[in-house]
């Protein structure tokens, strides 16, 4: 199709570069600089979608972010991007877009039957229609709604595009590059302020691109180009186009989304698609302009009905005619500007002005151009289904209540102007309570809440002269406050045509006997009748009316509908608009890609990965890794065809029979130093710490103030005032914060310092009956006999030339030692242990074998210390001192904590000695009891005991102490298993603890 609606010599698109793209599978041509909307209109295409509820035909209504209709789905590099506004997306070679919300095609849409069933779809139809019976929801209603609703389909594939985040600081952020944005940026930049000027469109200038004005003897476009060029050359200024400031957050933090390569055919490898800017600005000038308001009349959603300013922009920026027989329907002078542009380009418009006898420069110019103007006239209804073909028009009485002779005139588009609505969204997000300005029938920002000021038409100022002057002043004032400089630039002279007041009329009454739909919200299909119904049904608060009718709740957030909705409610309720109030504006101002919000924090970058210094050794030796917080730990070392079960069994067995070595670098380590360190530990741990000698370790448990176990670990007295504390891998960060809290806030008089040393030490746990023999070879000069290095002893020694610390501690129930060396020496230590250990049948073991060993000996860990257990529950009550006070002690006296039938740690063995018990199973008395079956407790951890070669689990069950020997059942509804079990002691292996002391 040729571009029948493209003018030859008008517009800013690049005629040298023709671009082809596909819409609904059909090929079209446009020019570089076109949006999908301008290129399609140039080709005479106006039908691009179907409406949300009634599936009525949808065309183009606006030319930018306010677009409620033309939402398309973009297919690009085999990825889908739904919710693309055709008025914003620029075309590029190979672009493919398609309509959404229609099936099988936009021209023949089965859902359009909803339009004929619209009596069944009144306001609140979701709440009314889909209520009963509840069982219908899942199978019938929800699939129906899902099929009928929605704008496009999100891709289910991984988004391969690159998104970035950037943090920026500036003196002044200016949101919008229209006349006020340019003027204030220029004044502030010249006065030395660090300025960021953000423009959401590809071209700078805002209304200056389309209005017939003169600034400093230059056209609006020329002046824009001059100012932008100068700003770009200044080192203290950042100028960004295609960048939407969409959110105003606390403490002057604003977020901006920059579309870097959305308009390019194929992204370069490292070029991001979008970049999210987090900008902390000292001051903000909101120059986001205003959006034209629609007039409401019958079938005002027909394709071809659009905002008059949009028609003007399509013409002046893109050289595109939205129609060749335009009807301009206006209540103010803006419609005349559009009519004059049509006329200048050889198209004859007809103006219907609701006012009876207005006069201004612009009206005089239109008259002089012989444009046909009908005063006191309105459009009653648009005619035509998929495109406007004609309009029913009528003269209207002075009180605007009565229509006279309705006549039909031919037209192919209706350009409406119901005056202007300032875009106060950002000011409102900042916390600014807006106020109603009766002169313009709209809300404007009130007192600044944060460091923000609103300028230009966003502040309800609609003359260029005042806009420019105010903006120069504001730019200077704000910059002066920050830079304390006084470089003032002179304000240029402005020539513009004088305009006059708008008519407060906005909604055309229905003619007798007609029931045309008159739409307020074009994206959510909310008509005048829906609001009337909601009010009849008793909804009063505007917040309720909004939610009941879904007015303003679509992806355009009611940019074109909110104010007309408020007007209607206030008319019906006989109130003034400020009494009705308005709903709250929340970020984002425009839709933002999830990808942009996530940024680079995807896949491997979503969190840091911590690896021990021995990691590469584990990799070389077939370790299968597991995530332990942000650490990667070997879960098991695979030999041959082994799976997890066989490998971990082999590794654990080897510990019990020979000797094993496990990487324990990940354990949290905290240095506790100072003369009051012993006293501090004595308050932090439940057991006594004052008499621990130098060179000895002790196991300790710490509680939260509410008596719940927080963490456990060993702490060793390295020297008089120096303790080495270990924590579990998971709680390391919390424990450090906990200790700092008490030292800094509760007991500042204690002379103690704590610091994390987790990263400083590499740790290897050596466990098994052969471990002493191995140690003798690793440290030939050290006395490692039971007397020389007893259980819970500590020694420093030399490991083949490097300094090492040896702790005789055990988490496996076997004779065991933990060796720590400086991180850089970790790999060396590990290799030496493996090398020397060969003759003692050493094998490395992973976390799975580690768990098996600790479960068998009944040593509690994270799955028992789950934030619900007190020491008694985990059988740690022996470690609770009765003599001294400590953190959380007072809570242990609370009635629930001293009750005798509390759940307590026990061991569980299946009667058949073969069936493994799933973790999380319930322990019950009677598996056939009526649901909900009263449970005695739950299985916290399970393993295959290598000592006895049968399954063994730990469980925490009611009155556990007295349940030993009972025959009960473990039930797992998830695994659909019921297993007869016997309750045994949690100390399944070596209950007297002889081995660790051997």
């Amino acid at each position, binding site marked *: 199709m040729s571009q029948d609606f493209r003018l030859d010599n008008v517009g800013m698109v690049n005629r040298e570069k023709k671009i082809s793209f596909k819409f609904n599978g059909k090929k079209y041509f446009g020019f570089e600089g076109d949006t999908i909307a301008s290129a399609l209109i140039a080709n005479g295409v106006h039908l691009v979608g179907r409406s949300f509820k009634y599936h009525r035909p949808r065309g183009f209504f606006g030319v930018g972010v306010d677009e409620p209709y033309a939402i398309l789905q973009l297919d690009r590099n085999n990825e889908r991007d739904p919710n693309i506004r055709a008025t914003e997306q620029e075309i590029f070679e190979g672009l493919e877009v398609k309509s959404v919300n229609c099936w099988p095609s936009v021209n023949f849409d089965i859902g359009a039957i909803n339009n004929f069933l619209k009596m069944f779809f009144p306001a609140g139809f979701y709440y009314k229609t889909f209520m009963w019976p509840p069982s219908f929801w899942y199978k019938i209603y929800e699939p129906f709604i899902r099929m009928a609703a929605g704008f496009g389909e999100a891709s289910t594939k991984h988004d391969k595009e690159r998104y970035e985040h950037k943090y920026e600081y500036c003196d002044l952020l200016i949101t919008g590059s229209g006349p006020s944005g340019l003027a204030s940026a220029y004044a502030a930049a010249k006065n030395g302020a660090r300025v960021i000027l953000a423009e959401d469109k590809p071209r700078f200038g805002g209304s200056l691109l389309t209005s017939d004005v003169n600034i400093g003897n230059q056209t609006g476009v020329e002046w824009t180009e001059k100012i932008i060029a100068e700003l770009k050359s200044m080192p203290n200024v950042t100028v960004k186009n295609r960048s939407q400031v969409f959110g105003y957050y*606390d403490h*002057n933090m604003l977020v901006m989304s920059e579309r870097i390569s959305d308009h390019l055919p194929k992204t370069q490898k490292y070029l991001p698609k979008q970049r999210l800017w987090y900008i902390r600005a000292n001051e903000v000038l909101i120059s986001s302009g205003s959006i034209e308001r629609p007039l409401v009349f019958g079938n005002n959603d027909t394709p071809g009905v659009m905002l008059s300013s949009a028609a003007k922009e399509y013409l002046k920026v893109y050289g595109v005619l939205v129609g060749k027989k335009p009807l301009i329907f206006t209540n103010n002078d803006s419609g005349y500007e559009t009519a004059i542009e049509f006329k200048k380009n050889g198209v004859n418009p007809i103006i219907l002005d609701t006012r009876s006898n207005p006069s201004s420069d612009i009206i005089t110019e239109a008259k002089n151009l012989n444009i046909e103007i009908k005063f006191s006239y309105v459009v009653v209804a648009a005619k035509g289904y998929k495109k406007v073909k004609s309009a029913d028009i009528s003269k209207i009485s002075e009180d605007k209540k009565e229509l006279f002779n309705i006549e039909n005139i031919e037209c192919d588009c209706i350009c409406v102007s119901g005056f202007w609505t300032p875009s106060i969204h950002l000011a409102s997000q900042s*916390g600014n309570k807006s106020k109603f300005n009766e002169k313009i029938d709209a809300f404007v920002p009130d007192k600044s809440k944060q460091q923000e000021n609103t300028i230009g038409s966003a502040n309800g100022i609609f003359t260029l002269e005042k806009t420019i002057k105010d903006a120069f002043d504001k730019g200077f004032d704000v910059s002066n406050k920050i830079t304390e400089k006084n470089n003032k630039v002179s304000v240029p002279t402005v020539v513009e045509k004088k305009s006059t007041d708008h008519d407060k009329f906005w909604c055309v009454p229905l003619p007798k006997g007609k029931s045309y739909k008159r739409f307020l919200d074009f994206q959510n299909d909310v008509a005048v009748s829906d609001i009337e119904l909601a009010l009849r049904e008793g909804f009063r608060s505007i917040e309720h009316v909004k939610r009941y009718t879904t007015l303003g709740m679509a992806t355009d957030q009611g940019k074109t509908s909110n104010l007309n909705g408020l007007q209607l409610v206030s008319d019906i309720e006989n109130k003034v608009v400020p009494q009705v109030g308005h709903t709250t504006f929340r970020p984002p101002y425009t839709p933002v890609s999830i990808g942009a919000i996530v940024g680079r924090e995807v896949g491997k970058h979503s969190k840091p990965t911590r690896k021990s210094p021995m990691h590469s050794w584990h990799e070389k030796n077939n370790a299968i890794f597991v995530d332990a917080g942000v650490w990667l730990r070997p879960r098991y070392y695979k030999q041959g065809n082994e799976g997890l079960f066989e490998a971990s069994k082999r590794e654990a067995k080897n510990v019990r029979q020979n000797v094993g070595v496990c990487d324990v670098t990940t354990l949290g380590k905290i240095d506790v130093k100072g003369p009051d360190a012993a006293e501090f530990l004595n*308050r932090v741990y439940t057991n006594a710490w004052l008499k621990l000698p130098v060179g000895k370790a002790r196991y300790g448990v710490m509680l939260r*103030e509410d008596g719940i176990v927080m963490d456990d670990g060993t702490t060793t007295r390295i020297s008089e005032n120096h303790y080495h504390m270990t924590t579990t891998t998971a709680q390391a960060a919390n424990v450090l*914060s906990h200790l700092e809290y008490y030292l800094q806030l509760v007991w*500042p008089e204690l002379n103690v310092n704590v610091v994390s040393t987790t990263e400083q030490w590499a740790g290897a746990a050596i466990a098994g009956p052969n471990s002493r023999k191995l140690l003798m070879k690793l440290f030939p000069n050290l006395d490692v006999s039971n007397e020389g290095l007893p259980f819970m002893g500590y020694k420093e020694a030399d490991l083949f030339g490097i300094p090492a610390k040896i702790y005789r501690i055990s988490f496996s129930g076997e004779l065991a030692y933990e060796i720590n060396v400086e991180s850089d020496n970790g790999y060396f230590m590990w290799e030496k242990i493996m090398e020397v250990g060969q003759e003692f049948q050493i094998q490395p073991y992973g976390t799975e074998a580690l768990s098996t060993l600790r479960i068998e000996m009944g040593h509690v860990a994270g799955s028992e210390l789950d934030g619900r257990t007190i020491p008694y529950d985990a059988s740690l009550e022996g470690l609770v001192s009765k003599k001294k006070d400590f953190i959380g002690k007072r809570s242990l*006296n609370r009635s629930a904590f001293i009750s005798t039938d509390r759940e307590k740690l026990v061991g569980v063995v299946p009667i058949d000695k073969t069936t493994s018990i799933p973790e999380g199973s319930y322990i019950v008395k009677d598996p056939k009891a009526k649901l909900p079956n009263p449970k005695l407790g739950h299985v916290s951890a399970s393993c295959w005991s290598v000592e006895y070669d049968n399954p063994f689990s730990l469980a925490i069950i009611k009155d556990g102490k007295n349940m030993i020997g009972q025959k009960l059942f473990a039930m797992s509804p998830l695994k659909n298993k019921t297993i007869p079990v016997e309750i045994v002691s949690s100390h399944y292996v070596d209950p007297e603890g002889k081995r660790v002391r051997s």
Partner: protein
Amino acid sequence: MLYINCPHCGLRSQNEFAYGGDATVKRPELNKEISDQEWDNFVYLRKSPRGKHLELWHHISGCRQWIKVERDTSTHEIFKTYKANEAIE
């Protein structure tokens, strides 16, 4: 995102801090006999004021000091920040 003036480091973004709750709560002294009610008040009961609130923040990704911040809970305005041991005005 809040902009918090750490008395040790200066203005820093909220994402460097962890929230620590009400700063006016005082832990009962060690070894002191107190009623269940007093202890419950300390462990569990917190006011949730609308308006000025003195609260704890921990500069975990900075100097690791616990600080006190006087903040309006509804507007998020921060009036003053204090070191842990500083007297509150």
